């Protein structure tokens, strides 16, 4: 069956679903329903070639193999092939628009609406993802657009501040530490338009993700006036680790994994700012013209298992959308509130969201950088 170019919903017609169910029921007597469903899907789709994945550094064959080991075991002839890592969602968007053809990629929650509206992606069929029922319902909902499941949640974490407790003495737990003159030259910002949101959050904008023009002006002027305190803007975690590890910076915008890595060698604190951290959730998205949609579902299913989730939590310090995944370390569990299914939302944190004026925010961030 040639599936190229058709939406997934249409590809699995009612007759196909009935056939699939019949096959599953028949084979289930011998090998169990799950294996039968897999066999049926494979027979039904006849998808070939290696699964094309566009993901972030550390999530492919460069360290993240455990996340999709079950998929590789099941589909050895369709192993994932990773495009060069995403550096940000814009980078992914530009590459896809310019002709890259991954089967799936993984932007973060603030981009679900953008990509769903872009016409580049198609909704997933949650029925084909066995672990879907174990995924955090709040995060599942965050992956929906107009009632359809465009994003399958996977890893999650926070944007907050990491600092050296032996060198830094914050006046209060606040995003203001990123702009503290006392530590001029020892601070690293993040090279992303999110800095405009953070400035808005710190300056108490009504909606930091959709600031009014006067609020935006205030945020940008504030960032320009504080630019000299930041030694550099990091865009790669390895750069941050190198600078933090060597003592070049003591304070940084950071993710939980940065805290996990740095606390191995340095006395560090991962601050929970009083203005609240920003929470993010990774979302697998399926490309519209993917020739391997069922393999993509199988890949995401492997990622969504409790086993993969536990590995991610233990090794990267990120949360996982599978609520049954529990890290080995109780310290990690407590620090990142991995046992709290609503950790990513209020009153604990602001879940990252769509930025309606994204291009304006981006232009303003560029203005700050070249100021």
């Amino acid at each position, binding site marked *: 069956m040639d599936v190229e170019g058709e939406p997934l919903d249409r590809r699995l017609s009612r007759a196909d679903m009935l056939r699939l169910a019949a096959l599953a029921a028949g084979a289930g007597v011998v090998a169990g329903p799950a294996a039968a469903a897999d066999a049926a899907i494979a027979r039904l789709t006849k998808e070939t070639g290696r699964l094309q994945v566009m993901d972030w550094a550390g999530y492919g064959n460069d360290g993240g193999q455990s996340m999709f080991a079950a998929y590789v075991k099941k589909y050895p002839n369709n192993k994932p092939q990773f495009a060069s890592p995403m550096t940000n969602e814009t980078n992914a968007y530009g590459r896809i628009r310019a002709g890259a053809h991954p089967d799936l990629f993984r932007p973060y929650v603030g981009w679900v609406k953008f990509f769903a509206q872009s016409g580049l992606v198609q909704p997933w069929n949650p029925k084909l993802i066995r672990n879907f029922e174990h995924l955090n319902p709040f995060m599942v909902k965050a992956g929906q657009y107009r009632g359809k499941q465009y994003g399958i949640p996977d890893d999650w974490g926070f944007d907050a501040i990491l600092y050296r407790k032996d060198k830094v003495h914050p006046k209060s737990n606040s995003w203001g530490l990123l702009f503290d003159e006392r530590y001029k030259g020892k601070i690293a910002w993040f090279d992303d338009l999110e800095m405009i949101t953070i400035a808005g959050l710190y300056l108490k904008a009504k909606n930091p993700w959709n600031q009014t023009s006067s609020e935006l002006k205030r945020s940008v002027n504030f960032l320009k006036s504080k630019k000299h305190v930041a030694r550099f803007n990091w865009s790669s975690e390895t750069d941050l680790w190198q600078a933090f590890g060597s003592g070049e910076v003591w304070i940084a915008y950071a993710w939980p994994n940065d805290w996990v890595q740095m606390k191995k060698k340095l006395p560090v604190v991962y601050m929970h700012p009083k203005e609240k951290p920003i929470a993010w959730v990774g979302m697998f998205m399926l490309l519209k013209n993917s020739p391997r949609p069922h393999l993509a579902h199988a890949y995401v299913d492997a990622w969504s298992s409790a086993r993969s989730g536990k590995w991610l939590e233990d090794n990267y310090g990120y949360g996982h959308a599978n609520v049954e995944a529990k890290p080995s370390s109780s310290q990690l569990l407590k620090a990142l509130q991995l046992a709290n299914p609503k950790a990513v939302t209020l009153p604990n944190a602001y879940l990252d969201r769509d930025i309606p004026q*994204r291009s304006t925010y981006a232009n303003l961030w560029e203005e700050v950088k*070249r100021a």
Partner: protein
Amino acid sequence: MTQAAAAPSRRRRRLKLAMPALLGLPVSWLVVFLVAPAVIVALYSVNELSLFPGPHSFALGGWYRLFHGGFMSLFWKSAKMSLIVSALVVAAAYPLAYFLALSGTRRKYVLLLLLIAPFLTSYLLRVLAWKVILSDGGVINTFLVWLHLEAHGHSLSFLLYSRFAVMLVLGYVWLPFVALPIFVTLETLDFRLLEAASDLYASRLQAFLRVTLPLSLPGVVAAFLFVFIPTVGEFVTPSLVGGQAGYMYGNQIVDLFATGFPDWETGAALALFLIGVIAVLTIVFVRFLRIGEARAA
């Protein structure tokens, strides 16, 4: 007689055929890999091509933003940094090339090989190595602490993530490129002119200023351009060692294409402006050289 007349005409015909054949490949190369991409970039800059789907028409928004969006001050900052690097590197490379070309040492080619030896390793590695040298806990700061010239924990922070760091690393990276054209010019110098200067009672300094330097000027200018052209649009080195202060025009082009939110229209205008400036500079320098050569002749 007829046969004798026919031979040069055949030779001329063969030459006429050989010229397009010889020029065909390089010209095609330039058309496919320089002219065509430049035209595509130009079409992006006026919105005739767009990253976004849907209708789009000719617009000069990208060009307007280039001249009114604060990009020009960034360009001047990059141009200044690049000019300083080019001038300093040429000044540093000239004595080196002079020694290698005119000292008469038999080992000059070995020394030349040593000069270009860093090119045997990757560009990225060479830049990253500087991070180790310049960082707070790096070679220089550790040495200064060891000499008790600075207190532990109070390192010279301007060494890394600064304009200084960018210029230092760029200078290091491009030094061999500068030394080579100067070396070639000096090596092909007609030494009889120096002997003549000496016979006419010119001092060594006078001979250098009035003979060697003017005659080696084409090499110097070429060397200067070899550094200025790539460094003015540089983005790898400032990304790695520049930090907030070392952000350059090339970084802005990359960011407009790939970070924040894609603005290929403005990014393309910035890229074309850079190409234009470099083309004009090259033409001016070449004309200057021709005038200089004509005067010397």
